């Protein structure tokens, strides 16, 4: 229970965004997660990102599967509709929702068990199908809600709380997302909100399947020495390739970075991603290069974070399906029903 609701009165004094909403307007119910759980920090980052992006809370839909991570949509954006579906199957539900109304913003929140174990199929197919959504996995390497079994993202050799070593190869969701066609792919750490918030902002502004793998330690079952998903381990092995800043189309771009170290990516909606390169010469628009970098660094035990890939010209599922601009859920009887005359003609053709 990291987030306690602040008393309503205070909100009068709080700063407001362009739409007049306070940060409080983006919060949800009180978290019931363990104190210190990484997931609560991700919720906080989502709240902050939505606030900063001036999103109308009710224009967003939150979807999840089952798990501690999947509970979190209840803990942010209380004015949005939320859907806590079944274990591992959020992607299909999100896909259906996105089909029904192309105008809302879709945020899927999942866990590593939810997306890499039971849900890997749906995860893979949502990415390749080009669902226009932000897909966040709160990755702790374990099943939190069922008390600490290894999930499919647990590294080979990582040690469980009971001392068992994991023998299976890990699934790297970022590598998969890159391979399967996600057009915005990042990784971050729940303990690094400086990096996480803008990464989420960019994803929410992205048009196409945006995936963010957030290492989010489970303090209760996977934060001990020997775990490769503990706060300490991640802090020590984190290798950020860039820092991102998201500039809304209506704002002038004022960047204070030295030229050359900055890369500018213009998204579909006109928003601009400013990427400051860190360390290595990293090109976030080179998908194959990104995969390569990821694999190489992973082999060295490093956790690569940052905006790893973005495709400026990304298309989404609706484009592929050539659906009308009006959201399908706003078409009325007249738009949909061919009527009796057409039916009579059809009957005639069937004789």
């Amino acid at each position: 229970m990291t987030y306690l609701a602040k008393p309503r009165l205070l909100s009068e004094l709080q700063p407001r965004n362009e739409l007049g909403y306070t940060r409080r307007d983006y919060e949800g119910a009180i978290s019931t997660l363990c104190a210190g759980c990484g997931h609560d920090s991700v919720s906080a980052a989502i709240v902050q990102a939505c606030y900063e992006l001036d999103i109308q809370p009710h224009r967003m839909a939150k979807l999840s599967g089952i798990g501690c991570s999947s509970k979190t949509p209840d803990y942010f954006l209380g004015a949005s509709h939320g859907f806590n579906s079944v274990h591992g199957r959020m992607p299909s539900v999100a896909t259906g929702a996105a089909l029904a109304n192309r105008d809302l913003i879709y945020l899927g929140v999942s866990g590593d068990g939810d997306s890499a174990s039971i849900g890997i199929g749906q995860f893979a197919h949502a990415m390749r199908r080009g669902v226009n959504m932000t897909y966040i996995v709160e990755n702790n390497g374990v099943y939190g809600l069922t008390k600490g079994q290894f999930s499919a993202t647990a590294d080979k050799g990582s040690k469980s709380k009971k001392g068992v070593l994991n023998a299976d190869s890990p699934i790297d969701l970022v590598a998969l997302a890159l391979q399967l066609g996600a057009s915005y792919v990042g990784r971050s750490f729940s303990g690094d909100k400086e990096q996480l918030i803008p990464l989420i902002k960019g994803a929410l502004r992205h048009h196409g399947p945006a995936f963010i793998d957030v290492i989010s330690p489970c303090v209760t079952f996977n934060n001990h020495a020997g775990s490769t998903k503990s706060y300490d381990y991640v802090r020590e092995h984190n290798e950020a390739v860039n820092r991102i800043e998201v500039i809304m189309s209506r704002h002038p771009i004022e960047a204070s970075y030295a030229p050359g170290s900055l890369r500018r990516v213009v998204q579909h909606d006109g928003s601009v991603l400013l990427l400051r390169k860190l360390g290595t010469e990293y090109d976030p628009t080179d998908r194959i290069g990104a995969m390569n970098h990821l694999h190489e660094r992973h082999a060295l035990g490093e956790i690569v974070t940052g905006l790893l890939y973005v495709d400026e010209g990304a298309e989404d599922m609706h484009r592929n399906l050539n659906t009308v601009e009006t959201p399908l859920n706003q078409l009325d009887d007249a738009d949909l029903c061919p009527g009796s005359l057409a039916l009579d003609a059809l009957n005639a053709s069937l004789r």
Partner: protein
Amino acid sequence: MIAITATNDFVIKFANVNGSGSASANEMFARAIIRMGVPVAPRNIFPSNIQGMPTWYELRVSAEGWNGRRGGCDLMVALNAQTWDRDIAEIEPGGYLVYDSTRELPRSKFRDDINVIGVPLTAICAKEFANPTQRALFKNIMYVGVLTALLDMEFAVVEQLIAQQYRGKDKLIEGNRRAAKIGYDHAREHFACPLGLRIERSNGVGDRIFIDGNSAVGLGAVYGGATVAAWYPITPSTSVIEAFSAYCRKYRTDPDSGAARYAIVQAEDELASIGMVIGAGWNGVRAFTATSGPGISLMQEFIGLAYFAEIPAVIVNVQRGGPSTGMPTRTQQSDLVACAYASHGDTRHVLLFPEDPHECFTFAAQSFDLAERLQTPVFIMTDLDIGMNDRLCAPFDWDDSRCYDRGKVMSAEELDEGKSFGRYLDVDGDGIPYRTIPGTHPSKGAFFTRGTTRNAYAKYSEAGQDYVYNMERLRRKQDTARKLIPAPVLAEASQSTRYGVIHYGSTSPAMAEALAQMEADNVHVDALRVRGFPFADEVNAFIDAHEAVFVVEQNESGQLRSMLINEGDLNPKKLIRVLHYDGTPITARFIADAISTVIEDRKVQPLTPSLNKVMS
């Protein structure tokens, strides 16, 4: 030797090899008979295979318009060497055999009590057509020509159909016409035409249309306002989506932009397809999927979610032979229990049972009203027999004044007016709560949907009383459903009788014919055709009003009967099973025999419990 004589009333069977292009020739032949005003009922009997395996097309010509399978075969068009022996054996004594006599066959391969008509189809084709693929294809249309002559049909009708089918492809029209004509002429030249069997122009077809149930479901979904279809291919349901897709392209393409007023997604599997339907339904569109048994099994968890979270969804189940992969290309009505009580925990789902393509259309359109009104999954329970075979049926109709019933959806205006909103609150006493569609209102009416227990305001709650409130409300909702589903259809016997029969779905034409046969034999039975579940009150009343009620089903365990007993607290002794489940469509003969035998027995010996035994 005798030769069967019959006009407009016989069974022709085509024995072909699948993938050889015979299907469209056979279908054209059926249409030719219809164009002559004579009703037919065709059935494809096909393997779970793409090419090279046996397939049959069984065509019942019936002046009276019986759509059920009759059984037996009066004329066999035997074109598959693999199945020759059993095909020959199947011909009724005095019946006819048409075969390709290019290759000579020993006498032992024939029967003495049938009339044999050998046409050297392959040889003629080889002579007449140069191109090898043409040779193979035109052989099919050529035997259609042969039959046209043998059965005294009008060649002009065939010509017309060819012209229609290949409209715009003049070369094909010409080739096909020529092949048909060659066959026609050959037959008239070599055989005494017509045979004892003949087609005589009539007006038995009336305004009926000829279409398969899956196409009708696809069209019904268009008329019913479905905009999202998510699916995964599986026999025999695939053509539901193919039809939906074709009708959408035709009727739902935006005339200005050319864009689609619909979205069809081929999902990666059935779990994903039902998940998409649920996501779409939650987000305010009418969405559906089509599948068959294995898909239903895979969807169970999600069906439970839609039931408990109360999300509209339509699931078309074109049933095939089970269990497991079972008989993928055979028909059954064996998924009733799997659908009615789908998913773990206490559930009860809405099912609809269309009898033919006409009802497939009507129920498909209506299912979306029901799903949205009741906020729950609705199953359309068809089967391979009506799904994948063309049927003559009443033309589709649509009342333009009809509006979609979107059910209890609370609007932004209502919320602004201060209408109180509790997502799972039973405000009207009918068990149906109000819902809001995501994005409705900036500050009111948002809620969190979940499959876990919660209170009436959609807040997570583990309290026993919240759970019980919810379950009791769902019960009330089922009572509401009972009143909304299509009412059963009663067919009273000509005389008052102690006996009733209950049937549903594709059994309908065989049942109707069986009733007529029995009436002719002075066996009187009132019939009730059940069209939905949870059962309407009339169903129990019907059972109460009879001393014994037969329940005719195409499954092994008497699934509808179990549901009747369970839901109506009825005495099982009263409900007599008539079960047919070998994968072939049930026949009037089977039903009439089964029922008459029991009734005959009972005349001798009055009602005793031991009479109640399985009939198949």
